[in-house]
């Protein structure tokens, strides 16, 4: 089974802190994604990566950056956390070609106070 893990299920940070969210997948997938999920807004794409050291902005990249130094790991960075970044963050991976099914991690619920 494909497994996507995220470093924390729950995280509480203060405004202005730098926050790192880690995601690891074990199926050698090329593509990895970071979404945020908010009630009534569905999933919105923050950033995605289709290869090591490659990244593309999604629909809402402002206030975020990403890092992909190894194929299995994709990190989301909040440079200076703000209260409007309180949300559920979901990581997903998918292989290039084939079914394009996205495999999701369990999510990290981040609260910024």
């Amino acid at each position: 089974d494909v497994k996507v893990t995220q470093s924390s299920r729950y995280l509480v940070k203060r405004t202005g802190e730098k926050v790192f969210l880690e995601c690891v997948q074990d199926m050698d997938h090329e593509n990895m994604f970071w979404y945020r999920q908010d009630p009534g807004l569905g999933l919105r794409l923050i950033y995605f990566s289709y290869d090591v050291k490659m990244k593309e902005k999604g629909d809402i990249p402002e206030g975020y950056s990403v890092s992909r130094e190894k194929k299995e790991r994709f990190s989301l960075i909040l440079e200076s956390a703000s209260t409007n970044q309180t949300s559920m963050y979901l990581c997903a991976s998918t292989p290039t070609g084939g079914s394009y099914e996205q495999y999701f991690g369990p999510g990290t619920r981040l609260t910024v106070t």
Partner: protein
Amino acid sequence: AQSVSQHNHHVILSEAASLELGCNYSYGGTVNLFWYVQYPGQHLQLLLKYFSGDPLVKGIKGFEAEFIKSKFSFNLRKPSVQWSDTAEYFCAVKLGRDDKIIFGKGTRLHILP
């Protein structure tokens, strides 16, 4: 801009009722279509997908969806729902050769026992 619309934000049904959740997308080219489900406290998982061929697609747990190209629609159906179908359902579309997937805002389904 391309988008995915889910018509119902919140649906409440009694057990054994029939279900149809609407999904429309705005894109004139080739699409791959998905329905994902998120049960309470669980991560998002694939319910069913359409790539090509028979426009009527069957998924897990008795769900099916029909791709109607002329209507840009991919509605999800189940003839008789169960209490365990209580979840949030997301329609998603992959556009052409893009690696990104666009998600709808989700439909919360609540089944009364």
